[in-house]
């Protein structure tokens, strides 16, 4: 191992301007990482404010109007500014080109543009916040969103602009995967994270433009009363819901599919075992992407769509369980008889398996028509959503972050503190959100400012959990940032992984590889390599 500081993408060229004008996918990944984490912090603060308010029923901490704005900001920021770009734009941008042995994504300028567009969208969201924020919930349902006095237009305009950033990332990834694979890297040798990003990109391409036109119509409706969503003028608010969920249901798979891709990598690497059912996992991503476009109506079971439509949507919703189940069982089969090492990334990977399964199965409760009438718009759905999105996507995001951290920065974080942070996160998360399943099944509606005294105990437990969770996040932020300054240097391949990004230096040189790699073996052939880690390959 060399001790002299080599030229790598982090230190050459130097200067803030070289970062702001960079076309390097790795640097753009880091720009995204910084902005996305800032949004996560902001959304997290709003989440804690919500939970602290809900410690007691009635007036506390903030007014009911402020509370409406806070939960809207929490939702809108977490969805549009954090979780949608979280994995693809950060870890995907960083790792995808290297995983396929490419020097960059197909359109580096478009990639940088997508980050600037993201920033522009964020500016609108912040502007809306300064104006007092929207109070509609992150779904911006009409007719309320066209009537309220809060600043809906800047928030929706922000979401509209962010859509372009998401489309550009997806477009870039599809072309990159098609055209820039290294010699010898055939489709069925691709890492599963790449397959997952491909399926995600398809949804980004097909769903996001529909949200674009929807939000545009909403803005026109609000600014000029054009009538399309206004029942008094012959318009239809349910049409808005159809449009909105035609994007926003597939969008939850934009959020979860990349997470599933990360878990596929983690499970194989840290079980030191060949992934079980490679093709089944790859194809099930596309199965999920396909079905995702046919289930939006399950958000509208109680919105007045026809019974027949509801029944069809309910049936199609159950179909999602099949490809999701295929994935879960393949991961379990990979773990079976593997020699599992409980490194930090794997802790999050295993958390994903557990929490996503809970989140996925409770989704079945909500997809069942009769049960949904009881559970819809209660804390049950809040808990379900957070189990899938936080327990699923965010856990996998953390897993991926800890997995690629040594590659991104060339530094090793403190594993003991990482374990502590994981413990806080996992325990805090479950206390916060499992409680909400109970609250919801007992009838506590979501988005309410106050509640009957009988719910107070459960709300208190949930709030305590959220603080534990917040402490976990704080510890993680501290040791990760500390590792940049005080961490040991990372070897090229600390996990003994077989995918291409680990076969170059940590951190990688600007051109990614000294020479274009040629792929001969499989990326999951852990049965063919010695399980004894050597550190630097």
């Amino acid at each position, binding site marked *: 191992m060399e001790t002299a500081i080599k030229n790598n993408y982090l230190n050459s060229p130097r200067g803030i301007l070289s970062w702001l004008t960079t076309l390097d996918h790795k640097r753009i990944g880091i720009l995204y990482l910084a902005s996305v984490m800032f949004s996560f912090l902001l959304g997290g603060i709003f989440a804690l404010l919500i939970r602290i308010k809900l410690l007691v029923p009635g007036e506390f901490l903030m007014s009911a109007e402020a509370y409406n704005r806070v939960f809207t900001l929490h939702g809108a920021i977490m969805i549009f500014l954090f979780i949608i770009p979280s994995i693809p734009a950060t870890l995907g941008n960083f790792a995808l080109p290297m995983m396929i042995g490419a*020097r960059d994504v197909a359109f580096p300028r478009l990639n940088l543009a997508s980050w600037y567009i993201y920033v522009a969208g964020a500016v609108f969201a912040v502007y809306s916040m300064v104006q007092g924020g929207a109070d509609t919930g992150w779904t911006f349902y009409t007719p309320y969103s066209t009537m309220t006095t809060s600043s809906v237009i800047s928030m929706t305009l922000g979401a509209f602009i962010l859509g372009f950033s998401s489309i550009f990332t997806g477009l870039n990834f*599809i072309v990159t995967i098609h055209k*820039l694979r290294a010699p010898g890297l055939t489709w069925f040798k691709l890492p599963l994270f790449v397959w997952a990003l491909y399926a995600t990109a398809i949804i980004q391409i097909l769903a996001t*433009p*529909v949200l674009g036109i929807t939000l545009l119509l909403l803005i026109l409706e609000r600014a*000029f*009363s054009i009538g399309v969503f206004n029942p008094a003028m012959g318009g239809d608010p349910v049409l808005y819901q159809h449009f909105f969920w035609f994007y926003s249901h597939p969008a939850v798979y934009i959020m979860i599919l990349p997470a599933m891709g990360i878990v596929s990598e983690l499970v194989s690497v840290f079980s030191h075992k060949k992934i079980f059912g490679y093709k089944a996992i790859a194809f099930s991503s596309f199965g999920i992407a396909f079905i995702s476009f046919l289930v939006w109506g399950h958000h509208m079971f109680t919105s007045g769509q026809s019974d027949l439509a509801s029944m069809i949507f309910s049936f199609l919703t159950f179909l999602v369980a099949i490809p999701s189940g295929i994935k879960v069982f393949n991961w379990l089969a990979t773990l079976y008889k593997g020699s599992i090492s409980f490194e930090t990334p794997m802790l999050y990977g295993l958390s994903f398996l557990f929490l996503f399964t809970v989140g996925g199965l409770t989704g079945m409760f909500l997809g069942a028509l009769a049960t949904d009438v009881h559970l819809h718009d209660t804390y049950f759905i809040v808990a379900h959503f957070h189990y899938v999105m936080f327990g699923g996507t965010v856990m996998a995001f953390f897993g991926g972050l800890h997995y690629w951290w040594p590659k991104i920065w060339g530094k090793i974080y403190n594993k003991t503190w990482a374990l502590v942070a994981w413990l806080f996160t996992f325990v805090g998360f479950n206390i916060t959100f499992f409680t909400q399943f109970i609250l919801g099944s007992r009838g506590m509606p979501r988005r309410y400012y106050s509640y009957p005294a009988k719910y107070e105990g459960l709300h208190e437990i949930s709030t305590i959990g959220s603080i534990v969770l917040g402490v976990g996040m704080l510890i993680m932020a501290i040791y990760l940032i500390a590792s940049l300054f005080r961490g040991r240097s990372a070897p090229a391949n600390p996990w003994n992984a077989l995918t291409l990004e680990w076969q170059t230096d940590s951190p990688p040189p600007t051109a990614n590889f000294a020479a274009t790699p040629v792929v001969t073996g499989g990326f999951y052939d852990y049965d063919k390599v010695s399980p004894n880690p050597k550190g630097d390959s």
Partner: protein
Amino acid sequence: MNDHSINHPGLAHHFSTPQQQKESAKLGLWIFLVTEVLLFGGLFVAYGVFRAWNPEMFYNAHRSLNVFLGALNTVILISSSVTMALAIRSIQLDDQPKTVRFLIATIILAAAFLVVKYFEYNHKIHLGQLPGKFYTFRGIEGTNPHLFFTIYFAMTGLHALHIIGGMSVLIWLTLKTSRGRFSAEYYTPVELAGLYWHFVDLVWIYLFPLLYLIG
């Protein structure tokens, strides 16, 4: 990588061959066109919903549109597609002056389309045949006739924005071509602009019958 590809005009560092770069660019543009289809798709769905609910009003309202001007614009746009295709053909044959002429012809036709559209819009604004609360016209029978004009202005307006966007790209291409940036060896941007331009025309081919020729 051979010397030929290193010296090739317009080859970015992360591609191995001009062929690979061109295929990537084309695939990228096709995917972009897919997103455009879905963007307009939302409005087509809205059109379908509101027409299904108000079939008679749609029929009555569409008669206030000027079929002659709509047909004229259809001819103009189809002609612009021809000149665009000829521009691509010319650059493939390495004839830059001819390419510039055809690009300028395309831009002029696009401008002519917008001029016709301007007179149509102006007439509608004058009569108060406008979307939503701005609708003041009396004389169209049926439920909520303003909805027809909401759809009409949203669809043709979004389409006109695409025409303006396309014109900016064509102007940029004309300048680049006249400076000798493109040749038979490298003309990907011209070809991509052509794909986009044909798409914009195609949208109008759907808009014209759906809005002007109901019933």
